[in-house]
């Protein structure tokens, strides 16, 4: 294995992210080839974490663009602070200034609201990590806009001029696969798929993040989560839920699982009423045993 990649793996583990070779390889290539990295996977498996860890590893800022339905260019790039501009006009209306001078004044730096993409372009010291989170929630128009920005790394604001990135950012995009992303975006990016971790990996994650929990409880609850994921649930719980549950159990000073405890704390894991009903029915029928058994 390449030393760089091994080093990346070590650095990620040091930053408290349990990782494996595919993740480290993709992160390595993304940083060297300077291509955006598209990370897809189910909810709660640690996609966003990778960007945060990358920023920590590279010792740089993390700039986050949270996508949502209806996200448009203004929200991604910049907007003028209209309220401030209007106030400014009001305050100076008796000063006898001409329109063009007024215009120059209010369309300047102090009145510019920089949104994440513009922030990412205008970092002074070093390239930041730009995290475009849940890009599948935005639409194709937003994607094309992003791609345009990613290709030139420069932006033209009519009133100010053209701003060119002195340090093009590292780009990480995450997606929960609720929508098929455009081919143009996929072609532009390196691709990483993150699946649910296997048993050993998940136990390691629990022990790393929630050290107060004893080993056997960590193994039990991981086994339990695995069984849950095999049930036909509406909202399949991810690693985030595993950790939430571990924290909850640790807070209750639990050292083993029993039906009462599980029933009290299942809300940390299952977030859908129908799922909880189905789960309780399952436990009422066959108890905890089958859920804790090795498959």
């Amino acid at each position, binding site marked *: *294995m*390449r030393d*760089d*990649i091994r080093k990346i793996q070590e650095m990620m583990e040091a930053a408290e992210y349990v990782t494996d*070779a*595919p993740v480290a*390889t*993709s992160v*390595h*290539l993304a940083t*060297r*080839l300077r*291509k955006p990295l*598209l990370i*897809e996977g189910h909810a709660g498996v640690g996609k966003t974490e990778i960007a945060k860890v990358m920023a920590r590893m590279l010792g740089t800022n993390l700039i986050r663009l949270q996508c949502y339905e*209806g996200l448009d260019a203004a929200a991604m790039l910049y907007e*003028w602070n*209209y*309220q401030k*501009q*209007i106030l400014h*006009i*009001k305050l100076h*209306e008796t000063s006898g200034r001409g*329109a063009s001078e*007024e*215009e120059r004044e209010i369309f300047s730096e102090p009145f510019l609201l920089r949104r994440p993409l513009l922030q990412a372009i205008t970092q002074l010291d070093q390239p930041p990590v730009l995290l475009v989170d849940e890009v599948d929630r935005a*639409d194709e128009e937003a994607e094309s806009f992003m791609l345009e920005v990613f290709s030139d790394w420069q932006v033209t604001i009519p009133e100010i001029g053209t701003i060119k990135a002195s340090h093009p950012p590292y780009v990480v995009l995450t997606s*929960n696969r*609720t*929508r*098929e992303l455009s*081919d143009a975006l*996929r*072609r532009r*990016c*390196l*691709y*990483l*798929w993150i699946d649910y971790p296997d048993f050993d990996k998940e136990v390691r994650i629990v022990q790393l993040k929630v050290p107060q929990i004893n080993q056997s409880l960590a193994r039990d609850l991981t086994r339990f989560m695995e069984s849950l994921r095999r049930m*036909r*649930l*509406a*909202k399949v719980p991810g690693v985030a839920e595993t950790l939430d549950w571990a924290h909850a159990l640790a807070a209750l000073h639990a050292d083993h699982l029993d039906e009462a405890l599980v029933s009290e704390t299942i809300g940390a894991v299952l977030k859908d009423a*129908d799922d909880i009903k189905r789960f309780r029915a399952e436990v009422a029928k066959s108890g905890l045993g089958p859920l804790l058994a090795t498959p």
Partner: protein
Amino acid sequence: MVRFAAALRRHGTPVTPEHVTDGVRALQYLDLADREEVRRGLRAVFAGRPEDFATFDRVFDAFWRPTTEADRVAEALAPPALPEHAPPGLERAGRETLALDAWQDEGDGEVGDEPVSVPAASELEAVAARDFSTFSPDQLDEVFRITLRIARRLARRISRRRRPSARRGRIDLRRTLRANLTRGELIDLRYRRRKRKKVRLVLLCDVSGSMDLYSRFLLQFLFALQSAFSRVETFTFSVRLTRVTEHLRARSYREVLRRLEAVRDWSGGTKIGESLAEFNRRWPALVDRRTIVIILSDGWDTGDPDLLAAELLRIKRRAGRVIWLNPLLGNPSYEPLTRGMAAALPLVHRFAAAHNLAALRELAGSLSL
């Protein structure tokens, strides 16, 4: 690397010249003695979807081998044999099968390539009133083209209907500001037209037995309407659910039919409840307030009607509208007495027919929220 890319392309993975250059560049940063590392690195570059991983692995293994195994390489690289014609129809009588097979053997021109003879208005009405299953194989093709033309025209009409009216909306600060730079007061107000969010369409089509023919008409009709919607997702089901949205995007009509052929299920019997359950489990995010869900089925269900009702209720709670299309409604003496249909009826917003062109046209009228 170029040959490797070509091999990938032959096996169906979309590969561009940029991928090739990235592949070469990536090799600089990978340990070339570590085969698995090279595989992981090249996979990140070339495979853009988990579905492509298997193909990538196969091609990678076949390609990067010591030269002494040249023969095996050549063999492994031969593209999978694609059937020239669809597998012969099963022992099934019935005009629908004949009609569709005949369709497939026809040339692979794209629909709309050849000039369509425009039937006179009265002829068109006669055609529109006939049940799809009454057409002979050669007529079906023509009817199909007419269907698409009608669909496209309707699509334009639907989009136009949705353009915002002249009513005022919220104030647009930016334009207001610009219009008032010379004055201190904001006298001249500019309004922002509310952005109309488009409707999304989800189709669940029963393709078991005789439903197949109606499903195809509906699928293509709605697919042609898709410019009027922000998104059209299509699924087929009989005993299991298959997402066919991508299949309908094939380049030629023949290709579309060939792909749909693969999801045909003549095994008889539909498990509607199970299929809806699978849909709810795997694609919950598709259904929201701005989605219209259309289910096309005759309601002959061999599954559990309680399950059907429960899953349909889940969809109804989340969707903007649920429409159930039943071709049997074309028969005036039909009554929805089967347990499946009876269970579903109270849970849908609209229950309509889909057995001929006239019915499809009317359907288009209710496709707005």
